[in-house]
C-alpha cells in the first residue's frame, strides 16, 4: 500500500458536552482495503463514523481525502467526496417505501420528474444481488423486519458511485445467510477497488474479510494490526485493554519520540 490513502484521519478529536468521545484518532483507508474498526461498547466507533460522514463535524484534527485536506461539515460534503455510510441506527424514513428510501437524496429523474420505474428496476436488481426477501419494494419501511431494514440500509450505500463505504455493524441483525452475503459484498467492494471501513463486534467476521484491524479504546487509538499476522488474543487484549502488548508499547514509544 504505497499510494496515498483515499481517506485518512489525522489527530481527530470530538467532544459532546462533557464527554470526550474521540481523542487524537488516526485512521487510514486505502483503495481496495478493508479496515475493521473494533472496540468495546461506547469506544467511539459510531462517533468516528459520523465525523467522517459529516453528521458530527470534527472539533480538532484533519480529514484527508486522496492526500488533500478536506472539510466535512455536512452529510452532503461526505456524499460529494464519495463516502457512503450505513449507520448503526440505519436512518431510514419509516413512512417512505423501500425504493424511495434507497434513492432518498439521489433520486433518478426523467425530464425533471422522478423516474419511479427506473428506480424500482434498479432497486429490485440491487436487492436481488443481496439475496434478501422483501415482500415488495413498494411497501413502507415500517413494515419490514429489523434485518430487512438493515439490508435496505446496506443497499442504499451502494447507490451512487462511492469510493469509501462505511458499514457500522451491518450484520448485527442479520441471519447466517444474509451475514454471509454482506461479507461477500464487502469482498466484492474491495475487488472493485473501494475502501471499506467495517465495524463489527464479531471477530470471526472481522478476520474473514478485513485486511487491517484498527482498535479504538475509550476514544483513543489502541493499535492497528494487519489481520493475517495477528492473533485474535492480541486484538481482544487491545480492545479490552487487559494487557499491554508489543504494538501498543511501540505506538506509545513513537508518540513519545514525536514530542
Amino acid at each position, binding site marked *: 500500500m504505497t499510494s496515498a490513502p483515499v481517506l485518512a484521519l489525522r489527530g481527530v478529536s470530538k467532544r459532546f458536552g462533557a464527554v470526550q468521545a474521540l481523542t487524537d484518532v488516526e485512521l487510514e483507508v486505502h483503495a481496495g482495503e478493508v479496515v475493521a474498526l473494533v472496540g468495546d461498547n461506547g469506544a467511539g466507533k459510531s462517533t468516528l463514523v459520523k465525523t467522517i*460522514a459529516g*453528521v458530527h463535524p470534527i472539533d480538532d484534527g484533519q480529514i484527508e481525502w486522496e492526500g488533500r485536506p478536506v472539510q466535512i461539515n*455536512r*452529510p*452532503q460534503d461526505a*456524499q460529494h467526496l464519495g463516502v457512503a*455510510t450505513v*449507520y448503526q441506527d440505519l*436512518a*431510514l*424514513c*419509516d*413512512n*417512505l417505501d423501500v425504493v*424511495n428510501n434507497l434513492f*432518498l*437524496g*439521489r*433520486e433518478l*429523474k426523467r425530464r*425533471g*420528474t*422522478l423516474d419511479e*420505474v*427506473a428506480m*424500482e*428496476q434498479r432497486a*429490485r436488481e440491487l*436487492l*436481488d444481488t443481496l*439475496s*434478501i*426477501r*422483501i*415482500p*415488495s*419494494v*413498494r411497501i*413502507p419501511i*415500517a*413494515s419490514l423486519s429489523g434485518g430487512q431494514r438493515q439490508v435496505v440500509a446496506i443497499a442504499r450505500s451502494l447507490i451512487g458511485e462511492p469510493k469509501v463505504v462505511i458499514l457500522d455493524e451491518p450484520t448485527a441483525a442479520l441471519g447466517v445467510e444474509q451475514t454471509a452475503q454482506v461479507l461477500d459484498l464487502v469482498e466484492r467492494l474491495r475487488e472493485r477497488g473501494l475502501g471499506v471501513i467495517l465495524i463489527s463486534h464479531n471477530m470471526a467476521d472481522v478476520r474473514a474479510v478485513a485486511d487491517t484491524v484498527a482498535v479504538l479504546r475509550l476514544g483513543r487509538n489502541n493499535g492497528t494490526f494487519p489481520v493475517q499476522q495477528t492473533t485474535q488474543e492480541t486484538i481482544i487484549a487491545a480492545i479490552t485493554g487487559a494487557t499491554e502488548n508489543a504494538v501498543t508499547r511501540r505506538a506509545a514509544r513513537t508518540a513519545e519520540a514525536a514530542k
Partner: protein
Amino acid sequence: MSNDTKTTPPPASSPAVDPRLLQRESGLSGYVSEFVRKVRGGDLGSLPVVVGLIVIWAVFSLNDGKYFAASTAEFIAYYMVGIGLLAVGLVFVLLLGEIDLSVGAVSGLAAAVYAVLSVNEHVDPWLSVLLTLLTGAAIGALHGFIFAKIGVPAFVVTLAGFLAWQGVMLWLLGSTGTINLDDKGLNHFLSGNSYFLGGDISGGYVLAVLAVASLLFGSLSEQARRRKAGVPFRPTSEIVLRAVLLAIGAFGAAYVLNQASGVPNALVIFLALLIVCDFVLRRTSYGRKIFAVGGNIEASRRAGISVPAIRISVYAISGTFAALGGLAIAGTTNAAGQAGADPNNLMMAIAAAVIGGTSLFGGRGRVWSALLGMLVIESINAGLYMLGLTLDIQYMITGGVLLAAVVVDSLSRRTQKSSGRA
C-alpha cells in the same frame, strides 16, 4: 373483464418477493380485497370522508328538502375555495409534521394589502396580486426561518404571527375597517359571478372530459412503461374502474353545477392548483424531500437533504396559499374587511386538511384532502345556513367535526403502527 387475467403483475419468481406476501389478486376482486385490507390496517384513505359526506347530505336532506338542490352545490363549490386554498398550504406544513396557525391572519392581511395597493394606491390589479402573493411568501418564509434556523417551535412562531399579522391588517385597513374591491384582475375571476366559459353549458363538461382523459392517458402510459420495464403495474380493470369513478364524480358535478349557473372560475383555479401541488408532491424530488423530512428528520439530514431549506420553503408555500386564499375570501364579498382574519377560517382550514386524510403527525397525506375536507365542511355550513342556525351552534359543530377528524387520524395512526405501516 375476462381478458384482464393477462395483465396481472409479472410472475413472483423474482427472489426479491417474499412468498408470504399477500399478493394482490388480479382484476377487480383483488382491488376490493386490497382495499379491505388497507382499511383494516388503518390506512383509511378517503373512506371517512365519503361516509361523512353521505351522512351529512342525508341528515340535512331529511331536515330540509330544499338542501338537495343545484343551488346548494353551487354554494358549496364556490365558498369552499377560499378556505380550501388555506388548507392546501396547510397540507404542505402538516406533511412536515408541523402546524401553521398564522394562515388565517395572513389571509386577512393579504386581502388588506391587495385592497390598499389596488384601490387606495391604484397599482395595476395583476401587479397588486403578485405583490400580495410575495408578501404572503415572505411572511411564511420569515416564520419558517425563525422556526428552522433559530429553533423556536413552529407552534409558537405561528401563534405569534396569528396575533401580529392580524394587528398589521387592522392597521392597514384603517378607521373605516373595510375597503371595497374593484371587479378587476384576479378579483374578477374570484368573485361570485364569474363562471368558466362564461357559464356556458359546455364548460363543466369540457373540464370533466379533460380530467377523465388525462387520468386515463396518464395511467395507461405509466402502465405501458412499467410493463416494458418488467416491474409490477396496475391492471387495466383497476385503471378503468378509477376512470369510471372519476367520470361519475366529474360529470355528475358538471351536470349539477350546470343546473345552477355553471362552474365558478374560483373553483377552476382551485382545482388547477391542486393538480399542480399534487404533481409537485408526488413527482418531484422536492416533494419527496417534504415527505422524507416529515418521516424522519435525522435520516433526511443524513441523506443530504437540507432540512432548514425544506422547512423555510414549505412555510413560504403555506404563506403564499394563505395570501391567495385571502384574495379568494375577499372575492366572495368584493371587499377586504376585518372579518378577513376570522380565526374560524384557520380552524376550518386545519379541519379540512385533517378530515381529508392528511395526518397531523407528518409524512402522510395528499393535497386532495384540502378539496375533500372542504366538501365536508362547506356541506355542513350550507346546511346550517339553510336551517338558519346561529353562530354559536355553527362554532360548536365545526369544533366537533375538527375533533372527530383528529380522533380518526390518531386512531388510524395507532392501527397503522400495530400493523406496521407507520
